[in-house]
């Protein structure tokens, strides 16, 4: 049993769900936190499920990501809230170079940032996977390349209009999802990768209408502290070559031990979404939910799906990550994908057989269907459309 010597982070944030049963100590530490909320964190110790008061999503009081290898692990919260609009009285009027929310979050304590990330991924993974992510509020995205549901739906509709079969549409979406998940997972494992070997211009066969360029590649380059095998280096070079198309900023090749924090910090500051291409591919925790596979994923079908220049990159990825997933899971996943959009209990008559198929596949892959809830309206509609 845990010794209760550590303070419960969640409790301090006002969102500990365990209450009495919590393994950590529920103390109100007067840390120099920016309690902008000013609400007694003690009052809100449990259940954020209570209607009133709602658990304040105090985003994170943790530290900043290390710009450089600091190595000093101070656990003090630094309120790095900088107001570049220094004018005290002047409200939000024309301030040209204004970054009012630039907290200049510096990851002084990489460990705790990593913890934040791990916690976020474990407790609060959103249902919609194709999202961008930042581990610190008000800072630029760590994982970029998000897609909204409407875009996905529009793409699916367009594809359907062009006569693509439902299966291939689903396949494409599934691949998108998977690569994004892999990216999250990598990020979880190695949050300090720079944009090295960064994002291949994903050519997800999106219809021309949308100008989405997604970069959910799995770049596991750099990484002294990671356990990625040395084949990484070859990949990073590959990645580098693929990278030329982008405005990579400091897309350092940092294949070496030192580099990554600096490249990362640079990326953190660049406003260009794509140069902040940390390719993280984090997420062991969630992927198990979907894929029931081991923590290091590199879904075999990634290789199959994206048939373009970055297939090269992909293969390298596969090399390093190993192909664990059998292709059956792949098809199972597509059905998961399908299934994901269904509300619990709701069935469309024409997709009943698909549901059965799904369930069969699910069972074969040992995946729990129950947790997957409604989403991605586009696909269901698609089913309808294509059935006509």
């Amino acid at each position, binding site marked *: 049993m845990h010794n209760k010597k550590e303070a419960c982070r969640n409790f301090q944030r006002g969102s500990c769900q365990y209450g009495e049963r919590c393994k950590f100590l529920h103390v109100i530490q007067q840390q120099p936190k920016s309690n902008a909320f*000013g609400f007694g964190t003690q009052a809100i110790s449990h259940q954020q*499920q209570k209607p009133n008061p709602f*658990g304040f999503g105090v985003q994170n009081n943790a530290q900043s990501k290390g710009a450089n290898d600091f190595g000093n692990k101070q656990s003090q919260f630094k309120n790095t809230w900088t107001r570049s609009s220094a004018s005290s009285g002047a409200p939000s009027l024309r301030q040209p170079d204004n970054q009012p929310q630039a907290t200049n979050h510096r990851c002084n304590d990489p460990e705790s940032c990593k913890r934040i990330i791990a916690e976020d991924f474990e407790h609060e993974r*959103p249902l919609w996977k194709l999202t961008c992510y930042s581990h610190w509020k008000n800072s630029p995205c760590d994982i970029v390349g998000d897609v909204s549901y*409407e875009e996905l739906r529009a793409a699916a*509709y367009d594809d359907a209009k062009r006569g693509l079969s439902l299966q291939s549409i689903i396949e494409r979406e599934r691949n998108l999802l998977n690569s994004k998940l892999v990216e999250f997972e990598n990020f979880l494992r190695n949050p300090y990768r720079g944009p090295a070997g960064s994002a291949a211009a994903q050519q997800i066969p999106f219809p021309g209408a949308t100008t989405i360029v997604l970069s959910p590649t799995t770049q596991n380059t750099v990484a002294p502290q990671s356990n990625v095998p040395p084949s990484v280096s070859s990949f990073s070079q590959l990645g580098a070559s693929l990278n030329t198309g982008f405005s990579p900023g400091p897309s350092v090749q940092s294949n070496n031990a030192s580099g990554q924090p600096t490249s990362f910090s640079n990326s953190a500051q660049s406003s260009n979404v794509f140069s902040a291409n940390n390719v993280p591919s984090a997420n062991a925790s969630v992927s198990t939910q979907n894929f029931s596979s081991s923590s290091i994923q590199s879904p075999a079908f990634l290789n199959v799906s994206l048939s373009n220049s970055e297939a090269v990159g992909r293969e390298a990825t596969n090399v390093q990550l190993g192909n664990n997933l059998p292709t059956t899971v792949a098809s199972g996943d597509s059905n998961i994908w399908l299934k994901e959009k269904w509300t619990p209990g709701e069935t469309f008559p024409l997709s009943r057989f698909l549901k059965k198929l799904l369930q069969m596949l699910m069972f074969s892959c040992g995946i729990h269907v129950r947790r997957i809830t409604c989403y991605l309206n586009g696909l269901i509609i698609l089913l309808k459309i294509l059935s006509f």
Partner: protein
Amino acid sequence: MTSAQPPAPGRELSNPPTDGISNLRFSNHSDHLLVSSWDKTVRLYDASADSLRGEFMHGGPVLDCCFHDDSSGFSASADNTVRRIVFSHGKEDILGRHDAPVRCIEYSYAAGQVITGSWDKTLKCWDPRGASGQERTLVGTYPQPERVYSLSLVGNRLVVATAGRQVNVYDLRNMSQPEQRRESSLKYQTRCVRCYPNGTGYALSSVEGRVAMEFFDLSEASQAKKYAFKCHRKSEAGRDIVYPVNAIAFHPVYGTFATGGCDGFVNVWDGNNKKRLYQYSKYPTSIAALSFSRDGRLLAVASSYTFEEGEKP
């Protein structure tokens, strides 16, 4: 309408669209409701009479709509066009085009312009009084850092939420550059942004079941008031199922607001006291859009997937 009483169940409008609803709006002048949908139509309903007053076909799924006045409105469509619809004559004409599907549209009474945001990473302002044709109606094009996901207007301020969690605040009187450029204080993709009716700030919602309340005023005092809260989550064995918050709507009179998420619930919150006032019973599927009528008496709730639409007093 205040708290504590269980809200009366809503009334469902007849003749709903046949495909998902992308957005719905009440008019500022009457109880007309404009609904845009993925079935390529924009429908005009009279909410109190529960009747369909008009249906307008488009070339592609319609992603957003707004009223101009009681006789005309605008729509933003996935076939890259921005159209003006005249309800009485049932006519529509194209106001202009983007290079990619137009995601959101707003009409600014203060500036007399139509503002549209699109996935081609631009914001365009149009003058609806001009004749059709892009050259004559386009007032300006403003590049955005990323694809535009949501827009909201209050008074002279425009808040634009884009992909990559960026938020730009513009002053409509000077659109040459954003008044403020911010990153979202939420960690995940932004879903919806709405300005407070009193013009002091905006609410931002994300795909991870959180809503952030922010303020325009950059002084310390105001920024200290900002906060974020979690909502639309279901707890299951230590982990939350986190639903995206799709829609926010502010009550015009009370300043309270409603949020709708993919879990099918609509919650009404009091922003100042930071409490939830009540929660409506679960809708069949996720909430796609919310809108309050001009006097705040009615709340229109669009529940997509099974394409219903309900309203409540």
